[in-house]
């Protein structure tokens, strides 16, 4: 198990994470967004598994399996069910058009590289070199959350944000204890389930899942 193998695998997983987030912003079809999110979950699990195998830590491999099951399959499945249920095809009018969002992505990536320079000087190595990818994911998540108004897009943005945080956590600390990861994963699952119920309620109430319809408080 040579170091160059480790470098390549980390680079590949990080590259897939970035690429899927770009596709999430690029494509306006919600089905494509859910598929990209599933691929992103698998890539995150692969990243964790690579770190686990390299460091010979069975606990990390177990966490990788947990991440794979949750982010690669369960959450996309829940999202897809919800998408089919409210019969949403695409995000109709994002607040920022696709071209501007894509250019914003490149700026955010640059920002992520700038702010994560201390990590690189702190501990040079393949894992810290991939930290900017995690920070970019967090920033992309915020971008999706602020510019998309569809309830499912909001969920997707939230999950990208969470993936970014998880990526940074695994890359910098070499993994978190199983209990902590389990707790965080359950939290995310619960939040997604609650938001899904909320989405269904919004759809039932307004006939669409556009958050701009929620303009005033009523009892």
């Amino acid at each position, binding site marked *: 198990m040579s170091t160059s193998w480790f*470098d*390549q695998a*980390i*680079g*590949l997983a*990080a*590259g*897939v994470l*970035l*690429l899927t987030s*770009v596709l999430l912003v*690029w494509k306006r079809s919600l089905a494509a967004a859910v598929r990209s999110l599933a691929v992103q979950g698998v890539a995150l699990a692969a990243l964790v598994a690579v770190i686990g195998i390299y460091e010979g830590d069975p606990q990390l491999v177990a966490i990788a399996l947990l991440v794979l099951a949750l982010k690669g399959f369960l959450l996309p499945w829940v999202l897809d069910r919800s998408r089919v249920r409210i019969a949403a095809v695409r995000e109709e009018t994002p607040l920022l*058009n*696709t*071209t501007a969002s*894509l*250019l914003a*992505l*490149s700026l955010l*990536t640059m920002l992520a*590289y700038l702010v994560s320079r201390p990590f*690189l000087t702190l501990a*040079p*190595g*393949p894992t810290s*070199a*991939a930290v*900017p*990818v995690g920070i970019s994911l967090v920033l992309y998540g915020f971008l999706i959350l602020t510019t998309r108004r569809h309830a499912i897009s909001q969920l997707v943005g939230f999950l990208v944000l969470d993936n970014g945080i998880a990526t940074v956590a695994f890359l910098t600390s070499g993994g978190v204890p199983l209990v902590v990861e389990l707790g965080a994963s359950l939290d995310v699952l619960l939040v997604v389930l609650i938001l899904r119920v909320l989405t269904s309620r919004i759809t039932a109430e307004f006939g669409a899942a556009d958050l701009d319809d929620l303009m005033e408080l009523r009892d």
Partner: protein
Amino acid sequence: MNAGALVLVVVQVAVMVVLSPLLVGVMRQVRARMEGRAGAGVLQPWRDLRKLLGKETLQADGTSWVMAAGPVVLLGSSALVCALVPLVGTTTFPLVPDDLFVVVSVLLLGTVALALVGLDAGSAFGGMGSSRHMTIAALVEPTVLVSVYALSIPVGSSALSAIVEARIADPASIASPVSLLALVALSVAVLAETGRMPVDNPSTHLELTMIHEAMVLESSGRDLAWLELGSWLRLGALLGLVGSLLVPWGIAGDVTVPALAVGVLALALKLGVIGAGLAAGEVFLAKLRLFRVPELLAGSFVLAFLAVTASYLVVQG
């Protein structure tokens, strides 16, 4: 070294002048067959050129010298690109490197010449075509620069021949994520730059969405022949560049007769396969709405940009 480079440049330009009309012919023929038409034959672009060169060059009233100079500048810049890009061999002049930035600026020179030709006659169609052409060029040039820059980081040189040599020496680098991202971005940029299918439909005339054909409407005779040949050379050189980066085998490292012969054969084969594949793909594509084109190009720019960031990731790791 100098004599070798000179021979190579002459061979490359001569081969490209012969091959690019054939390439266009092959692409049209593949497309015709797949659409159930008989097609005009592979040699038709050459027959067109001969016909145009034999005709009288007419110029509309009120046109200036730009109308006559533009086609020559386009042809010259395209020939220069063919000479600079490592298509047959990687030997270069020591003083005139086939640097990425040189190649892109020469390309841009041809783009501007073509746009000026479109504007000169003052017709509505020409102006519209030129304006669209410049919009797309402004979006494409950064993508070409950034994607080839991503390929140049592992090599440590922005000379195209050095990049191709490094890829021959280390074939594993071709399949790396960085190189794949950059190649996808570069291919989209090349399609847009040469006016191929998702961006412009090369086989339409007098349609409101056309770009390239709108600019050459006012030209005739010899001028039109130069414009067409210049555009075809450009297409050949850019597709050849993608081919050289994707499959660098067969490119001559030194200037000897057998090496050059292998290089020319490999180039013809690569251009034929890429052109036929592109034409076959175009049959299944619909032209993108003009307002969606910036989305496609911004997407390819982001891919190229990510390739640059990812290449720093691997280099530092």
